[in-house]
Structures are given as structure tokens and as C-alpha cells.
């Protein structure tokens, strides 16, 4: 598993130009459900060597949050070949996350 902090400066290199799939996790310190989702993501991503997990702190990266119409967190966006292919809002259990990244 490859875990990176995404900012507006590295977004293009880390997400748009990534070879494999990228799972973006929009989160913030004050978000309880985000804290609970984070270990679920780690657990699922550990089974998918090809998956890169990009963490986006919405407090620090409001432009990225706006760009993806994020109005509630946690929000997950799955990228394949530089394009968003799936989006999910709210805390989800591991099995749902599995099918989310299978899209």
C-alpha cells in the first residue's frame, strides 16, 4: 500500500498521472467518522498492492474539496487512469469499501 498526502501542488503528479488506481480520502481532524474510516481504509488497502491511498485534509486543501463537490466528509473518490470513476460519501464498512474500489 502506498499512502500519500495530497495537496493541490502534487495532485496532478500523484493522482492524475498515477499508473495504478488512486483512492482519495477527504478528511479533517474534527470529523469523527473520518477517524473511524481511516483504519478501515488501511485494512482494505493492505490487500491491494496496486492501490495508492491519497489523503486530502479539507481544512488545508479547500480548493480540492470544492473541485470534487465535497460537502460532507468522509468522502472517497476512486481514480483510474487519471479520471474519477467512483465516489462515496460517509463511513462505510470494509466489505462495502472492497466493492467500491472494485469499480
Amino acid at each position: 500500500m502506498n499512502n500519500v498526502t495530497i495537496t493541490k501542488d502534487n495532485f496532478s503528479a500523484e493522482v492524475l498521472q498515477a499508473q495504478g488506481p488512486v483512492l482519495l480520502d477527504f478528511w479533517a481532524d474534527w470529523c469523527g467518522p473520518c477517524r473511524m474510516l481511516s483504519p478501515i481504509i488501511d485494512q482494505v488497502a493492505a490487500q491491494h498492492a496496486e492501490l495508492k491511498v491519497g489523503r486530502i485534509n479539507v481544512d488545508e486543501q479547500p480548493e480540492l474539496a470544492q473541485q470534487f463537490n465535497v460537502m460532507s466528509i468522509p468522502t472517497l473518490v476512486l481514480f483510474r487512469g487519471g479520471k474519477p470513476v467512483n465516489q462515496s460519501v460517509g463511513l462505510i464498512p470494509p466489505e462495502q469499501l472492497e466493492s467500491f474500489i472494485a469499480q
Partner: protein
Amino acid sequence: MASAIIIGAGPAGISAGLYLHRGLPATDIRILTKGAGTGSLAQAGLIENYYGLEAPISGAELERRGRAGAERLGLTIAEREVFGLRLNDKVDGFLVETDKDTMEADVVIMATGAAREKPLGLPGLEELTGHGISYCAICDAFFYRGKPVGVLGAGDYALHELGVLLPIAGEVSLFTNGAPAPAGVPTSVTVYTEPLQALTPAPDTTPHRLAAVELTSGQTVPLAGLFIALGTAGSTILARKAGALLTDDGRSVRVDEHMATNIPGLFAAGDSIGGLLQVAKAVYEGAEAGLAAVRYLRQKSRPQSST
């Protein structure tokens, strides 16, 4: 001293309190209730299929006996309406926000009963959730900085959500959906008492995003966000706020066989976890949750006892 908060004083909540008290008598246990007769047990006319009842008794009487028995053993039952539940900043305990105060506890057991709110039946509600429709002001207010937002509801919980939004959002409106306007609405809030008829998404956005709500009079009110706060904050709303997983249908809190949610120290029992809505089941699950809370508290205190 370890502390526990049990939300709800019905069969599950009281039973949880009894077992927690017996397992760890030194624990500071507070059982919170909106008041006698506010749960589903009080709605039951006569109960005759429950263990130990020589003659049928009313649900209200069974509820009264349950509380009286708990109080006799020294448990504290306090009248509070709970608005919010979250992990504290150290992530080692919980903050329970109520109508009177914010309380701290090492463990929380949710025994709030099942959601009895009727589904809203507003077209588009599902698709717009997370895209303008929110169930948690403190979670999502940030995204509506300076934007027009509304709160749907007419009770104290709705007023609480208004209070969270006022300092952050732009113009704030209250939609009572047909209920009379409550007392205590801040003067800067516009109140609409007509029921909502439809949600209007913004054109050409992917995913869809809320742009306005339409009232039965045909009037349209532009809104970036609508916060749903009908009735009281039930178990699923409290669970969402804390970060606890729900069952697949979203109507109950998801727990394991020991009534533990995915959040260490947070348990749920009774109607709030779905299944058979019966006193016998609630009493068992409360007992299981109480014992699981005892084990959790024992484990938690172990590493700290050496310092």
C-alpha cells in the same frame, strides 16, 4: 473513577446499567432519558408475555418498575435530551452533548430505541445526501461557510443544529414542515412553516448538488445545504455523528455479538440495533452490553494502573 453514560432508560438501558453496576460498582453511571413515557414501552397497553408477570401490566408500569429498581440499587437517572455524541480530542473517551450540558464518559451505551420518524418521502433526498443534504451540522457546517442553509425540524434538536450553523453559514432558515414555529428561534433566522414539497438540484452538476427547496405553496427558497433535524437525535444519527457503522439498510446501529460498535467503548442495545422489537430481547442485549462495557473498562484501566 471510570465513567459510563447510557442513553435511554428503557429495558435495554436499565438492564445495561444493572449489569455494569454489578460488574464494576465503582463506575460513575449516568442513565439519560428524555423523560418517563417517551419510549416505545410506554406505548404498549398490556404486557403479558414477559417473564415473571403474574398478572398483565401496562408498558408504562413495567417501565416505572424498571427505573425504580435501578434507582434502588443506586443508579442515577437524569433527564436530558441528547443532541450529539463524539470522541474526545484524545480519542480515549466520549463527549455527550445534551440540552443542559456536555458530559464526558469512558464508555457510552446507546439504548435509544428505534427511529420512529416517518420517512420524509422527499424525491431526491437519497441522491442529494452528502451533496447538500446533511444529518449533522457539526460534521458538515464547514462546507457551507457563508452559504445559505436550512434546518428541517421544529424541536429542541433542530434549534441545537441551528445554533451550530449560525456562526459559520450565511443566511440560515428553519423549515418546520407543517409544525408550528418553536419558541426560541434566533431573530436572524427566517422560519418557514409550510411543508416541503420537493428538493431542487442544481442543473448540470455531477454529482447532483442541492440548489433550492420548494414549499407546498410553490415558493422556492435557494439553499446550498439542508440539515435534517426532525424529532430527536435517534440512535442512527448519534451513531453517524460519532462514526459508528450502521446496518446495510441504514436503520439500525451495527454491533457484534457483544453489542460493541466499530468504535472502542461505544455499545448499542435494544431496538436501536434492530431485530425483534421486544422487551425480552432488549433486556438480554442490555445485559450483554453492560458486561462488555465492564470488560472494556477493566482492560482500559490496566495499562494506566502502573503509572
